[in-house]
């Protein structure tokens, strides 16, 4: 078995971390550019090759049509759900999308879990390069307020990336775990997690027992579509209105110009976390230059409604935990958007204390995931997370009304049993519709799945089928049914409303093997080129220094021919051909290498004998 890691699959950035055995502390793993933040951006080049991260983000400016960001917003959602997002985000949705969204990327289209799998696979390769060992299992974090479909989509993404998902952990809970290691804390802790695309608030109780520490989530709430993206969009609205008014230029929200503007707006947003004012600059070609000074006060006025939106979930979570703000002992800030001074101030005022920000808000979730991964992997439990389900689970009853069977904020795993029977004579199937949400009517809640219970024809009301609904430790629903009259276990084939079924996953897994092969081939090409480079350099040097006494003219011609052939092979992407030419060159230089080796030896011996004199 390979190594196990913790992964924060974020809207804007994703990270991978592991538990360092020597220091006993979790650490993030850097990528090839030295940073441990992988931009959650995926692009495709002209040849259909997938590009992830920094390089893909650069392509947002040059090839926006072939690049996708913030795909987390689409996880576990249907086409009808995302109409609002489509007005703001340049997602290119495949017209053939049905219950599962498909996004066009070049000539192909992918589901959000497949796109997320590209990001996960990149992180996996970072970790494998770091450990020089395969990585095959992971703990992946999700927003606490993610529903069943969004969680399932994340789990599917892990599977498609070749990772066994040991556990999905809620992001704020993971952060609390990382903070708990950092500094022992007791009592009630509020974790305010304001990220790139999602907002979560979790209220935890930290308990010391004789066995170890327990992190018990009392309540959680949030908004899976509220984050730094919304702040960027508010700035974007402002800039576009002003550009329209001043220059008469209407910017296409899905064009590449907007991406350039977006980049400079994000830079301005970052600067305003430390500076009192900054400049937004955006060239408009012949029309001139949009230059705009923005002060922190103006920025704060602009984003105040967005920050205020985080307070409703915060109040609801506190109410569900049956606590007042004054009863919170510690508040912890997580997520990049908590770098904004207005956010810190708002949270501080609400909880009546200065919130903690000692740990890097971008890294803390991944660090916590690594801690949980280590606990599950090692089997040595030093602490225990008791998390909750964020939304009530219900089933549709007559008249489209929901009967709640597992209330929100129930500690998971949680279960409920319901008895079903027939309503008319000789009815052979009972429809069951499962939903998640807090509203009274089915139409206002999130449809999770439907299934049918089969029963032999009989008078109405005679059938007795017991259905057990169980939410596992990942927050994912399992359903089992039993016919109480025959004591037979029913096979329940659940058709997810917004997810992939097993057949689709299998097919994608097969496709992903192609990608894995492509990845493998690429790595081989890179390695072969590197090796060829060093052999060619060494041969050139040897030929240059070797006199005719060492290498014959014939030999020289043969070597130079092999070199030329290798250089030609290197221009292609066939690593096998490169390997052949490397071997051929090695064979051609065998004699030369031997002579040089002897020469070096005799020089060394001569040197020694000289010393002795």
């Amino acid at each position, binding site marked *: 078995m390979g190594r196990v890691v913790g992964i924060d699959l974020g809207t804007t950035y994703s990270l991978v971390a592991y538990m360092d055995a020597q220091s006993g502390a979790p650490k993030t793993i850097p990528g090839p550019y030295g940073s441990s933040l992988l931009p959650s951006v995926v692009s495709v080049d002209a040849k259909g090759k997938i590009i992830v991260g920094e390089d893909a983000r650069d392509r947002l400016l040059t090839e926006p049509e072939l690049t996708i960001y913030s795909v987390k917003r689409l996880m576990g959602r249907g086409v009808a759900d995302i109409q609002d997002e489509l007005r703001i985000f340049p997602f290119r949705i495949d017209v053939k999308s049905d219950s599962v969204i498909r996004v066009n990327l070049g000539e192909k289209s992918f589901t959000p879990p497949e796109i997320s799998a590209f990001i996960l696979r990149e992180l996996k390769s970072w970790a494998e390069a770091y450990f020089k060992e395969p990585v095959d299992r992971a703990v992946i974090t999700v927003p606490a307020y993610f529903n069943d479909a969004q969680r399932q989509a994340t789990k599917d993404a892990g599977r498609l990336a070749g990772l066994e998902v*040991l556990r999905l952990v809620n992001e704020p809970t993971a952060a609390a775990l990382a903070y708990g290691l950092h500094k022992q804390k007791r009592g009630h802790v509020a974790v305010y997690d304001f990220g790139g695309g999602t907002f979560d608030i979790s209220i935890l109780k930290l308990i010391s027992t004789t066995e170890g520490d327990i992190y018990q989530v009392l309540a959680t709430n949030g908004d899976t579509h509220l984050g730094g993206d919304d702040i960027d969009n508010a700035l974007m609205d402002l800039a576009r209105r002003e550009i329209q008014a001043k220059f008469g230029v209407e910017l296409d929200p899905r064009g590449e110009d907007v991406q350039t503007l977006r980049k400079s707006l994000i830079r301005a947003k970052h600067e305003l976390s430390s500076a009192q004012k900054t400049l937004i600059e955006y060239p408009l070609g012949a029309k001139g230059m949009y230059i705009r000074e923005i002060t922190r006060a103006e920025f704060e006025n602009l984003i105040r409604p967005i920050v205020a939106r985080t307070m409703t979930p915060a109040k609801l979570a506190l109410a569900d935990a049956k606590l007042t703000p004054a009863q919170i002992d510690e508040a912890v800030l997580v997520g990049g958007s908590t770098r904004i001074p207005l956010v810190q101030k708002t949270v501080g005022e609400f909880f009546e204390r200065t919130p903690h920000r000692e740990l890097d808000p971008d890294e803390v979730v991944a660090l916590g995931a690594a801690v949980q991964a280590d*606990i599950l992997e090692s089997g040595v439990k030093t602490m*225990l997370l*008791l998390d909750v389900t964020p939304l009530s689970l219900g089933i549709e*009853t007559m008249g489209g009304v929901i009967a709640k069977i597992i209330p929100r904020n129930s500690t998971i795993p949680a279960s409920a049993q319901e*008895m079903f*029977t027939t*309503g008319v004579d000789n*009815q052979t199937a009972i*429809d069951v519709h499962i939903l998640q949400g807090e509203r009274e009517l089915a139409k206002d809640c999130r449809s999770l799945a439907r299934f049918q219970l089969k029963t032999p024809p009989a008078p109405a009301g005679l059938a007795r089928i017991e259905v057990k609904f169980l939410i596992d430790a990942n927050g994912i629903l399992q359903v089992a049914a039993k016919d109480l009259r025959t004591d037979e276990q029913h096979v329940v084939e659940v058709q997810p409303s917004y997810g992939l079924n097993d057949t689709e996953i299998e097919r994608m897994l097969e496709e992903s093997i192609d990608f894995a092969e492509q990845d493998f081939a690429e790595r081989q090409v890179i390695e072969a080129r590197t090796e060829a480079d060093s052999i060619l350099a060494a041969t050139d040097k040897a030929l240059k220094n070797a006199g005719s006494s060492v290498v014959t003219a014939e030999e020289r011609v043969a070597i130079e021919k092999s070199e030329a052939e290798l250089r030609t092979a290197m221009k292609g992407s066939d690593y096998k051909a490169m390997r052949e030419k490397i071997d051929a060159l090695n064979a051609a230089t065998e004699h030369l290498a031997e002579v040089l080796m002897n020469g070096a030896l005799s020089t060394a011996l001569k040197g020694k004998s000289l010393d002795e004199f």
Partner: protein
Amino acid sequence: MPLSQPQTKRAEGVPVTSCWNCKGAVSGTHFCGACGKIQPLPAGMDYFAFFGLPRKLTIEPAALEGQFHMLSWKLHPDNFVRAGEFERNLSLQRSSELNDAYRTLREPLSRVEYLLEFLNLRKEGTTKQQAPPELLEEVFELNEWLDELREARTLGGEVVLLRGRLDAAAGNFQAKLTEVDAELAALGAQWDAALDSGADEAKRTALLTRMSEVLNRRSYIRNLVDGVQQEIAAA
């Protein structure tokens, strides 16, 4: 047509006499005393028994919470990630039962409701709720005011006065709710005492029946208060 009947909370599982692993007789509640393996849930084990408690209605919250944490530490799926599928499922079953049991027993109201449901003495929602006779007059008056308020709202009449009257009435019923809760607590104490003194079946059933009646009254008043508050908010 889906027909969801009221839940009769029965702990699931199969009767256990010997350990699935070492075949020895199982003495512990959750684990085999001999080999330490987690055991399937026995049929008919109620939430009280799960916590090793008698079916008493007075439960010390801190003690219950401590027990919940202790059992969580032992039964949680985290402990069984590396175990086989069979044990993983047992952990899932046991830990979900633990969480369901704790959620139910920690609140006095859901605790007494559970006890009655478990003993098949209460089926909420099966009979249409009737106004308790002693409240009939007040309920009648309240409904009249509510009608007037709805009428005033649609016709654009005076709502402030009506709202004030309804507010006062809602407060009045809220106070009745507190009384009912006190009555329920007293009955609960009598039940506990009856268990302690080994009172006969008839006496215990009588107590349970009274508790069921009080619960019906409580849920009637609760719905009434909620309804009035909704109307006031809408006006």
